[in-house]
């Protein structure tokens, strides 16, 4: 397990899986930093998957959603398997209502998220 570099938002990599928590009370600059940090971390670590914990999200506006969605899309382009976890019921209801979709496997909690990563890896190697 390796700790994040100084100045970055907290990110850790464990057994080839990056774990990152979405920041509390995200401002525009924080969203930008999150994106840059995550992309650079993915590039620098030889990880095959990312678990993004979104449990810090209390409210969600369109702009924030777009930013998160774009960040996840960019991360996926770097070739890692993206899993999201910890979406709160209220947020999910809003997303369903407004037809905002995050087309990534989602876990109930962090444990379920790691399970999804393991399942993906097993499916890949068994082929």
């Amino acid at each position, binding site marked *: 397990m390796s700790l994040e570099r100084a100045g970055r938002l907290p990110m850790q990599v464990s057994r080839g899986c990056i774990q990152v928590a979405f920041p509390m009370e995200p401002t525009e600059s924080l969203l930008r930093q999150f994106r840059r940090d995550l*992309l650079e971390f993915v590039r620098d670590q030889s990880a095959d998957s990312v678990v993004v914990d979104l449990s810090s999200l209390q409210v969600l506006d369109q702009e924030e959603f777009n930013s998160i969605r*774009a960040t996840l899309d*960019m991360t996926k382009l770097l070739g890692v398997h993206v899993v999201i976890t910890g979406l709160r019921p209220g947020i999910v209801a809003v997303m369903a209502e407004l037809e905002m979709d995050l087309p990534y496997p989602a876990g109930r909690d962090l444990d379920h998220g790691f399970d999804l990563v393991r399942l993906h890896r097993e499916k890949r190697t068994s082929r």
Partner: protein
Amino acid sequence: MSYTAMDLHAPEPATMLEVYGIGQDEIDALHAWRDHLEEGGYTQLVDSFYRWLREQPEYEEFIEDEATEQRLRGLHERHVRSMAAGVFDDAYFEARDRVGVVHARIGLPLHSYLGAMNHLTMDMLAQVPAGEDQARILTAITKVGHLDTAVIALAYSRYASERVASQSKALLEMSTPVTEIWQGVLLLPIVGIIDSGRAQDIMTGALTKIAASRARVFIIDISGVAVVDTAVANYLIKVTRATRLMGCECIVSGVSPAIAETIVELGIDVGTVVTTGTLMQALVVAFDRVGLRVEQRGSR
């Protein structure tokens, strides 16, 4: 005259003769001159030419030994004889063209060749006997000299443009090196800028190679690509779509954070294209697709 700017072959002999004003009059004049030359004129012309040539810096460089000079003397005399014979048919033009290409190939500068040509023409003019035909013969020789110059210049420029064409073709092939890095796995690293022309080459190069090697995975590494914009992304998507139609999966590797941002911000839908950040990841995916697994050798 029906030749385009790119056509550097000499026009039809008839056209050339018309352009240079060489007709029956001139040929008759040349014949009169030929009769005069038969009395030792050819030898004098050749001797004079090589006396002059020996003083030129090019002589040392291009004529290696006595045998070469003897051979060239023979060719030279044949050349003068063919001019004096006044038979300007296809064979004549072909022979002159060949001489031009040979000189261009050995790297003799055009001005050196034309200088020698000029010297020869002057010598030939000096060989014209005084008499009522003198003026006609002088005109005819001058015209033939100019005609030869034109054919030689065309041969030189054609040789040069052919070389440029073959070089740029070689460069083009070098710029899209599709390599088979494993059985069934092709790799194409792209460096520099992708424009529509290059994209076309990449497409044909890739598809030909896929067909030939029956590859199952095709990796395009774009870590060396300077700019990825909508056009470039669309080219890449097009290539991946085409390879899929040939039963070959395409992986785009070397996607940097900056490129990933650009692609998403431009709203480009890469669809089901597999992208990876590093070539290493792409290789892992590729091995997986062809059913191989790379493992650390267990300690015994």
